[in-house]
């Protein structure tokens, strides 16, 4: 179990470095296991450096940077062990236009292995989808679906 965990961890780590770089142009990020006798008990540390800064405390990151860092970790896990489907509820809300573009680009690349369903208020995220459902409440308090399918 220990060696399996370490093997999985290292695969996730390699992915994290790649995915993080795709979101943060001039940044670098990695993960590491904290010092511990038993790797199965160690903490997972996240280290990031954005645009020209030296190593950064996660708490000082901006709202959008935190969201992209967390999404990078989640996508890194998917690449190792694809979740067959993944629902994302308004995770794009803190992102600016450029980052929404990078986010939807990443979704398209991973959607070969993982089926993504996003809930969003953002036009660019909508444009990236191939199927779209609208939810409304014509009758008060009762949800109704309107399909706006493209394919």
């Amino acid at each position: 179990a220990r060696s399996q965990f370490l093997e999985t961890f290292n695969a996730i780590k390699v992915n994290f470095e790649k995915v993080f770089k795709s979101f943060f142009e001039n940044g670098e990020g990695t993960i590491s296991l904290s010092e511990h006798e038993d790797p199965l008990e160690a903490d997972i540390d996240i280290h990031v450096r954005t645009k020209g800064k030296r190593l950064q405390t996660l708490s000082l990151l901006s709202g959008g940077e935190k969201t992209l860092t967390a999404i990078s970790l989640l996508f890194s896990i998917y690449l190792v062990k694809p979740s067959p489907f993944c629902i994302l509820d308004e995770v794009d809300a803190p992102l600016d236009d450029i980052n929404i573009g990078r986010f939807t680009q990443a979704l398209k690349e991973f959607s070969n292995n993982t089926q993504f369903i996003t809930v969003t208020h953002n036009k660019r995220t909508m444009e990236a989808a191939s199927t779209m459902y609208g939810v409304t409440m014509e009758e008060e308090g009762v949800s109704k679906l309107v399909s706006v399918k493209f394919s």
Partner: protein
Amino acid sequence: MYLSKIKIIGFKSFANKTELKFNPGLSCIIGPNGSGKSNIVDAIRWVLGEQRTTALRSDKMENVIFNGTRSRKPMGMAEVSMTIENTKDILKTEYRQVVITRRLYRSGESQYLINNVPVRLKDIIDIFMDTGLGSNSYSVIELKMVESILSENKAERRLLLEEAA
């Protein structure tokens, strides 16, 4: 493996029978505030076996049953069915297509079915073993999780990676 259909009736604001069909690939759900989008997300968590009422924004499980409006009475049961195409034989079953159903009655009585055969909650959890699905996994992501993934308390991160390993 992909989710091809969700059927919702009596669950939260979905008083009327509602079906969503999906293709593999990227889909999105849009609509005004309060229209029911996150309720669909809750329905997916619930049919996968979610037992924590807080993850469903409730204090008791009975709150997921449609609770009525000025012009409609509350309903007596909530039901969600999810159809999964078992294309890569990821699910632990010989079926090509698997329909998972969960029902909850106001009495508190619960039912779980796989392809219309009554099973126990444990059987639903087992079928998703090792798939990265199942309600405690990283398959449903919302903004609140971003904070917990990055927080000083590293337990959340631990759980995520353990699911994968």
